């Protein structure tokens, strides 16, 4: 009795669902195909890049991280631009030409009248004056304002000592002529100008959206963001994707080859790798450390001015003793650490990377004398209980911390407690001095040793070691007054030697920029300071 009825039920059931199955199959055949065909044509000229963190806004004046700068660099353009490869060349941007005085302290830029905002509004010299006034305004609190301190009176204005911006050395000589006067000779000033902090911002658009100096102004997160670079914002799906398309009004638009770029938010390096393998993205941000090996297909290991280092809290005992700090440094087997954990990079014996062009002038530092701590000093190191080492929970930081913990335990017998946390919490803990040791990296803003050594200045914004040394500051100040580039580098080298004698930070490795790059991407920029130009990139399918 039961069997036939069961079978009947089954047949009935199949007949009921059959139309739906057929509908599904047909719709897949029709719509699926048409979709994928148009999609293929679309991605043929779309560059897809993985992006490690969702930006709050694409305001070049508020961007801090390299990741934020990567997007800003596609949408905006400064006075001068970066070439397709290398960093030395300086190409015209909004400025078509420029003149420099002999002392290298006064620059006059002739602006290109064809360079306009994407809504057609012209960019004149006043736009730059207003833009630079914005980033230097104290209550705007832009972190990158320190990059402008070379300009006459800029530091005073930013610190609120003077309130009249006309005294600052940025002025419009005529509609399309901008003069920048510095307070000292800076031969590499044009290099600095490539940084995204120097990009102009659409003053008219910002004012239409709210206060020019208001941090909460939403202009830079608008879907119809006005910009002046090779690309303009097309769509922004929060926490998923930022799409930008070619800017038709861009003055050099005929050179721009790639029609659109998509920034896909993928935080995890493993996921980036999988997306790359699946052909979903063309460029990744990082390579998972365990995969790194020299002959990995499509992998690139570009030299870059970036140093991974340990920052030590020099304010609190026991790391307020420089001997203790040096002992910690000497207990680290950097070669082994790089071989076993980091998998790329070079052991670092000073803060400024060895890939820094033209630095140091002489051969490298002599090996410093080995510091052997007396029993009493070791006891002092152990006296306050375990040292607290904080790391952000990104990629290999925790692995590095565990390896270091083991090395110090084995060689010095000191106990280190590791705390890993989210990146923002990590930075807050560093800023508040609530740590003993922290693992972090510094990437230069421009190709000059000063961008590294300036970090450790007593009042430096990024000097989280709280190390204060007037001799060091004096050497840095002295270097700024020296016009001759050779004696300047000598002075900086002296400062670096002093830094390594005091060791408020422990350099670990000189990093390389490791990423996957699809073979269809041609002319991908390789920059020592991680500046990106998308203008010259083209895709070969």
């Amino acid at each position, binding site marked *: 009795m039961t069997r036939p009825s069961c079978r009947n039920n089954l047949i009935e059931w199949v007949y009921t669902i059959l139309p739906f199955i057929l509908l599904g199959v047909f719709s897949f055949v029709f719509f699926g195909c048409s979709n994928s065909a148009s999609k293929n044509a679309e991605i043929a000229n779309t560059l897809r890049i993985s992006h490690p963190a969702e930006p709050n806004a694409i305001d070049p004046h508020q961007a801090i991280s390299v990741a934020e700068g990567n997007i800003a660099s596609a949408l905006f353009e400064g006075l001068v631009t970066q070439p397709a490869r290398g960093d030395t060349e300086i190409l015209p941007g909004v400025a078509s030409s420029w003149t420099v005085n002999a002392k290298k302290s006064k620059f006059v830029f002739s602006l290109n009248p064809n360079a306009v905002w994407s809504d057609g509004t012209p960019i004149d010299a006043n736009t730059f004056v207003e833009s630079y006034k914005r980033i230097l305004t104290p209550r705007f609190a832009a972190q990158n304002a320190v990059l402008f301190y070379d300009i006459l009176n800029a530091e005073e204005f930013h610190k609120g000592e003077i309130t009249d911006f006309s005294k600052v050395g940025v002025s419009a000589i005529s509609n399309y002529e901008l003069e920048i006067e510095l307070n000292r000779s800076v031969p590499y000033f044009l290099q600095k100008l490539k940084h995204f902090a120097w990009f102009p911002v659409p003053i008219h658009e910002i004012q239409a959206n709210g206060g020019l100096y208001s941090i909460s102004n939403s202009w830079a997160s608008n879907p119809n963001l006005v910009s002046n670079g090779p690309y303009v914002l097309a769509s922004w799906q929060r926490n998923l994707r930022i799409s930008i398309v070619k800017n038709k009004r861009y003055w050099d638009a005929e050179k721009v080859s790639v029609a659109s770029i998509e920034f896909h938010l993928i935080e995890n390096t493993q996921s980036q790798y999988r997306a790359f393998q699946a052909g979903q993205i063309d460029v990744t941000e990082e390579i998972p450390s365990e995969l790194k090996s020299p002959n990995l297909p499509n992998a690139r290991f570009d030299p870059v001015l970036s140093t991974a280092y340990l920052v030590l809290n020099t304010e609190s005992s026991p790391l307020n003793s420089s001997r203790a700090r040096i002992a910690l440094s000497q207990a680290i087997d950097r070669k082994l650490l790089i*071989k076993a954990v980091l998998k790329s990079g070079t052991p670092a014996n000073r803060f400024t990377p060895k890939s820094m062009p033209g630095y140091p002038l002489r051969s490298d530092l002599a090996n410093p004398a080995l510091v052997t701590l007396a029993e009493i000093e070791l006891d002092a190191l152990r006296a306050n209980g375990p040292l607290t080492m904080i790391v952000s929970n990104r990629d290999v930081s925790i692995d590095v911390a565990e390896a270091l913990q083991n090395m110090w335990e084995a060689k010095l017998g000191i106990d280190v407690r590791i705390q890993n946390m989210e990146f923002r919490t990590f930075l807050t803990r560093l800023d508040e001095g609530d740590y003993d040791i922290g693992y972090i990296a510094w990437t230069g803003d421009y190709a000059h040793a000063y961008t590294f050594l300036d970090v450790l200045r007593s009042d430096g914004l990024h000097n989280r070691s709280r190390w204060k040394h007037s001799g060091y500051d004096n050497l840095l100040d002295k270097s700024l007054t020296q016009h001759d580039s050779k004696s300047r580098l000598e002075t900086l080298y002296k400062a670096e030697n002093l830094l390594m004698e005091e060791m408020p930070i422990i350099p670990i490795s000189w990093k390389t920029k490791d990423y996957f790059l699809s073979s269809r991407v041609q002319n991908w920029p390789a920059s020592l300071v991680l500046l990106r130009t998308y203008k010259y990139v083209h895709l070969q399918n």
Partner: protein
Amino acid sequence: MSSLKDIEVIQARSPWRDAWLKLGKNRLAMFGLGFFATMVVLCYASPLFYPHSPTSQTLSLGATPPLSMGIELRYDAESEVADEVITVKEFADVYASNPEEEALRIRNGEVIDVDGLIFSKSSQIHILGTDGHGRDLLARIFQGGRISLGVGFIATFVSLLIGVFYGAVSGYLGGNTDAIMMRLVDVLYALPFLIFVILLMVVFEGSDHQLLLIFLAIGAVEWLTMARIVRGQVANLKNQDFVEAARATGVQTFSIILRHLAPNILGPVIVYSTLLVPAVMLLESTLSFLGLGVQPPNASWGTLIKEGAEKMMVYPWLLFVPATFFSFTLFAMNFLGDGLRDALDVKSSKD
């Protein structure tokens, strides 16, 4: 002779003995009990017999698959301790001139000399391989087990204490008190409970007793279901004759709950506890997976699985081995819990 035998036959078995015999017949449950007991003994006793320490690193060796050979490298023939321990692959890539043949010679116990460097077979055998820092994986699993099982027991115990007491009081007193107490439980149920644990963890972050706090925090949010179960049982039991009798003879409320009610609700409580242990272990691994659990170099099964998942493509055994241990333990506990439920089920025993 015969009268003695008769007495034995007539003697009634206690319900506990009954349950135990019933459980003994349940193969799956007994397997669960056996596996679980073995795991507990192995994890807690491993420092006594297992030669590798979970925290001693051999960075130069790195991650090696189960039972693979390490090669000791000495810069100097006289040195007693090896300067480095490397993998066969590195030996073949960097040092060897005739990799296959030389590796085989080393495997057979020969000491060979390549350009003044002395290579020999490492005596250390890692049964389940090593992780990225060259630490023995089995030792890490034992250590992780101590933490994971510890969390399971302590958190369950905490939730047992709170839940049984709260549920018994609520169920016995009844009326408005019961209504208010149970509504409070309802309100707590509505809280997103993982977020609550994370909040507790963040508040106590950096404390020296963070590990204990994880245990307590998990226990403090897991008692709700226990309270409901106990309340239901007690509300049912309190009208039965033996409780009425106790009340009539003037036994105090607290004593009634402790002496007369508690033993009668033991069955469901034990069953629920065995099922709670794996749930708590799972929660701990979730927390560790999110980076809120144990801090390195300590590990729990959750952190081991997390590390393994990150390196799954290159070092698959780092994921599969801890995941196998973890899932088998969870299965074992669940089988045991199910078996106990069947064994202690009062209704089915009356059949």
